[in-house]
């Protein structure tokens, strides 16, 4: 029985995934990167590119739909949408794609994200001064309220929440480092990852320079990455006729509370709790009828290591303040209770703004991941305020 707030379990499935290499200098435009990833995703699904009739991306993606359509040769677009709130809203692309397919307004929808976060005009982690206070649909008012005070980066905005979290629960930057070491261990054996063959010890983490004291060191930050990821979403019926076993979008949901922002989320009363993720968990677990102990793989948005801790708690995998012990006890490892970010995460693999969490979940369910887990039937993807549960069909 379908319950409120989530799409029906069989609304749609992922039939194909594609990506470019992840690098620090792509040497080509976002339009080209997106086009390459979309063609790769269609090849993976063994569908004609021209059959794609839906496009979904992020509001802040630089690739213009008209240019994309004429570049990859799409013939007839029935549905297109853009999702706000940056990476926190990233699983909204799956929601739009699945809803479009379920409603019948489109048959084959491609979700894409293309970035040159390292070599492009603006480095993601670079110091930006308040040049534009217009609404950029990025889910933040930081250019108004943070930048005049020298808080010029997402790391600096999130640091205010992270310091409060540490104060509330006694977590330390070394605790965060234990998660980073695990992520870098996964990345070290993932050839697609920035951190491939570069594992890290806790001492290396603790020796890295402060970005924002007392919570975020350099190695607590995701990788500014050039690259693109694309995901083909269609009906279960169509997906079943394609070469890979379909990966069901069994539940997809969004959740944001009054006064919340992405990254610059400073006006909720208690910043030591990631309330949006608690609401997300209610929708994905309670409303959709999944149990936490059914989750074989968790892909959790780790733009900065502290928000991984805050999501683990808000999603209910451990109690408030317990993430330091949950992580320290090795639960994120392959043999732990919640193998997490097995591609190395955004910290270890690269930062395609969260969409590379979906490709890793699909690979784990298919059994084709670089660090394969024994048998992944149910995977959670949490981008903090949007998320999905993906299943082996």
């Amino acid at each position, binding site marked *: 029985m379908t319950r409120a707030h989530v799409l029906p379990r069989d609304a749609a499935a992922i039939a194909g995934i594609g990506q470019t290499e992840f690098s620090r200098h792509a040497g080509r435009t976002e339009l080209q990167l997106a086009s390459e990833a979309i063609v790769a995703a269609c090849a993976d699904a063994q569908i004609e590119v021209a059959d794609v009739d839906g496009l979904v991306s992020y509001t802040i993606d630089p690739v213009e739909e008209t240019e994309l359509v004429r570049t990859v040769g799409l013939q007839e677009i029935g549905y297109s949408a853009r999702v706000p709130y940056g990476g926190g809203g990233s699983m909204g692309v799956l929601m739009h794609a699945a809803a479009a397919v379920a409603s019948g307004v489109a048959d084959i929808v491609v979700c894409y994200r293309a970035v040159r976060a390292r070599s492009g005009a603006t480095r993601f*982690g*670079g*110091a930006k*001064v*308040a*040049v534009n*206070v217009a609404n950029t649909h990025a889910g933040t*008012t930081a*250019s*108004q*309220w*943070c*930048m*005049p*005070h*020298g*808080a*010029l*980066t997402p790391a*600096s905005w999130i*640091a*205010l*929440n*992270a*310091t*409060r979290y540490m*104060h509330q629960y006694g977590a330390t930057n070394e605790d965060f480092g234990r998660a980073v070491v695990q992520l870098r261990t996964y990345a070290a054996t993932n050839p697609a990852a920035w951190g491939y063959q570069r594992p890290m010890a806790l001492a290396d983490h603790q020796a890295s*320079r*402060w*970005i*924002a*004291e*007392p*919570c*975020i060191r*350099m190695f607590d930050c995701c990788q500014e990455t050039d690259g693109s990821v694309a995901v083909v979403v269609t009906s279960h019926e169509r997906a079943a006729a394609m070469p890979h076993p379909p990966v069901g979008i069994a539940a997809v949901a969004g959740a944001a509370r*009054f006064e919340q922002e992405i990254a610059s989320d*400073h*006006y909720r009363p208690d*910043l030591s709790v990631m309330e949006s993720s608690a609401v997300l968990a209610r929708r994905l677990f309670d409303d959709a009828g999944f149990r936490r102990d059914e989750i074989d793989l968790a892909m959790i948005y780790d733009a900065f290591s502290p928000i991984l801790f805050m999501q683990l708690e808000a999603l209910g995998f451990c109690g408030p303040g317990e993430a330091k012990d949950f992580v320290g006890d090795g639960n994120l490892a392959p043999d732990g209770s919640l193998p997490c970010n097995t591609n190395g995460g955004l910290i270890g693999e690269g930062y395609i703004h969260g969409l590379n969490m979906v490709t890793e979940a699909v690979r784990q369910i298919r059994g084709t991941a670089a660090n394969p887990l024994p048998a992944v039937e149910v995977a959670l993807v949490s981008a903090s305020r949007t998320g999905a549960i993906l299943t082996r069909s």
Partner: protein
Amino acid sequence: MESVTARPAPRPTDDSAVYWNAIARHELVAQRCDGCSTLRHPPRPMCPHCRSLEWCEQRLAGTGSLYSYAVLHHPRSPAFDYPVLVALVDLDEGIRIVTNLVDIESRDIRIGMRLRVAFEATSDGAAVPVFGPDPNDTVPA
């Protein structure tokens, strides 16, 4: 030494001008709803509680306590001195603002410490609010 250029002026919108215009004349204000008297920040045209569009400016005492902070080291903009001490201050009237800490060493910062507002000039004759330890606070840090 790299010369430090003037701190950039805030860029108010029509909705937020009430706050920044007051800061420019060295006053800290918030919008107070005429319908239900609730104070709000950041500024917005409608009260989210009673949906009244009527409001007035209320001058705030400029005192509060430190809710959270971060000592920013990297990346560096030439417009600021480093490390930048960025803070969230819970004002005594019950609203929270993003600001900077001044007149304090980072090692002496304590969450919960009492603070008082001051104002720092920016380019274009504007200002930003900053907070230092409250000299009237008798509670030992």
